[in-house]
């Protein structure tokens, strides 16, 4: 049984149709993006499912997860990834991230105690002119949040918690 195929038959067909029939390996990255949608990371089951769909070994698929920084094997359901590269740093990104972590009582790389949000430091996101900025990864999406303050980010996290709590309560 292929859980991924059962869950996203339409999406998977659309992805496979993008590449020549004898070059289906190209679909490995889009399929990994799809596999992360539910949990925020690629499960062992998803690795096996993708390997089966593309006729690759599980190790082959895992090597792609290991190489590219947007794929994860564990962590929170959401990830807030703050750019601290040179242009952002010149606009106060390091101070921003430091204060944010201080407010939340966690360190860079750690996840909030409720398992909801992991905080990470990342390299350039092409938002240099609107720093401090970060991207949020979760629910299979990546959204940009620019010209941020510690207050605006804390507010966003609160909203995320409320939204998530409301969903779980249903």
């Amino acid at each position, binding site marked *: 049984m292929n859980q991924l195929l059962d869950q996203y038959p339409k999406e998977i067909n659309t992805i496979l149709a993008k590449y020549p029939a004898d070059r289906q390996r190209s679909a490995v990255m889009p399929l990994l993006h799809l596999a992360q949608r539910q949990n925020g990371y690629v499960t062992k089951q998803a690795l096996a499912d993708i390997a089966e769909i593309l006729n690759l070994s599980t190790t082959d698929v895992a090597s792609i997860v290991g190489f590219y920084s947007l794929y994860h094997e564990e962590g929170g359901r959401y990830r807030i990834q703050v750019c601290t590269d040179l*242009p952002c740093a010149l606009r106060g990104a390091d101070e921003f991230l430091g204060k944010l972590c201080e407010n939340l009582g966690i360190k860079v790389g750690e996840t909030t105690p409720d398992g909801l949000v992991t905080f990470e430091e990342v390299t*350039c996101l*092409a938002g240099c002119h609107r720093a401090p900025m970060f991207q949020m990864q979760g629910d299979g999406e990546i959204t940009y949040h620019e010209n941020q303050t510690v207050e605006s980010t804390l507010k966003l996290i609160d909203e995320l918690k409320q939204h998530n709590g409301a969903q779980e309560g249903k």
Partner: protein
Amino acid sequence: MSEYILLRHRDVPHIDQLDVYRQHDGFEAFRKAVTAMQPADVINEVKASGLRGRGGAGFPTGTKWSFLPNNLWPHYVVANADESEPGTFKDREIMEGNPFQFLEGLMIASYAVQANVAYIYLRGEFWQIAAGLDKCIAELEKAGLLGENLFGTSYSLHVYTHLGAGAYICGEESALLESLEGKLGQPRLRPPFPAVAGLYGKPTVINNVETLTNLPPILHKGAAWYKSIGTEKSPGVKIFCLSGNVNNPGNYELPLGTTFRHLIYDLGGGIPGNKKIKAIMPAGASSFIIPATDKALDTPMDYESVPALGAQLGSASVIILDESVNIARVIRKTTHFFKHESCGKCTPCREGTYWMDHITQRMVDGTARPEDIDLLEAVAKQIQGKCLCPLGEFSISAVLSSVKPFRQDFEELVAHEEVKTSV
């Protein structure tokens, strides 16, 4: 500038809508190419315009296209939308604000080399942009501008987006192709070049988003018009990404040959707090660091003049450093970036960036030894000229161009060592 050529969304509201784009001559250039021009005519027109690749290398676009052999098929075109150089954020604005002009450019390039399939390789972080482009592509298919037998001719074209997943190296074209084939993003040994053996081993053109976005106006208004903008050897407009210690950071579309001073002071509003400018990095983190002398400030930003300063124009990501910035801390940021982004294939780059990262970490931690400055320079020199792709080379540009002119900044950091050990 009176009228934008690339960032047209700043002049024309809602040009990101297909009907608005078409009301402003949208897809007329593509129609003209497919219905009234031979592929070779398109290549010749682009050659005549003098357009050079905007991704960083500055290679003449029409010439790059003409390298594809006509006895090997199919041909592919890939748009490089992996914009990842620290300090670069221009392709993003084009794809967000003026997506149809970019797509039309990609379609013209595809017709010129007779590719029936084109891919847009976007960095994974551009998830929202890819979703927007997918919507645009669906609209073009519906409008009969993409698909089979376009304008009643025998020419067919399909365009697909493909998301990367966070790897700077995939902006390098052969690593991009590996990634698009579903493999680790590591550069290929060349030759053969992608023009002969590219995607799936087939002849492939890879062009930057900004390069492609220049094509519709070039075909529409003609090569002579385009060549009248900019300088003789660097014709046309370029989007300069201005960031760092400057009052008005952002994208500036300007004729090539505009001076640094005009960009930084007249348009960028100068340095915050009226501080003095210390140095310029004209090509992002990969850049040589140029001390901001009057001579440097009055240098025209084009493909010939910037190299004369001992640097390169690259993708024109101009990072400004003011007098309060310690250059050794800048180097800490750039070396950390390259250590993180080295793909690991070539030993000098993999190990060299690792050690430069360690040495500069010691410097900012206050645990460096005075001899670490020379050690940093020595490691950088051992990377020089020894790697398959330019990443290794890029990782040392800032190091080698700063250790001598800004040695005092490094000494300031290593001086902490004595204090530390004596306490």
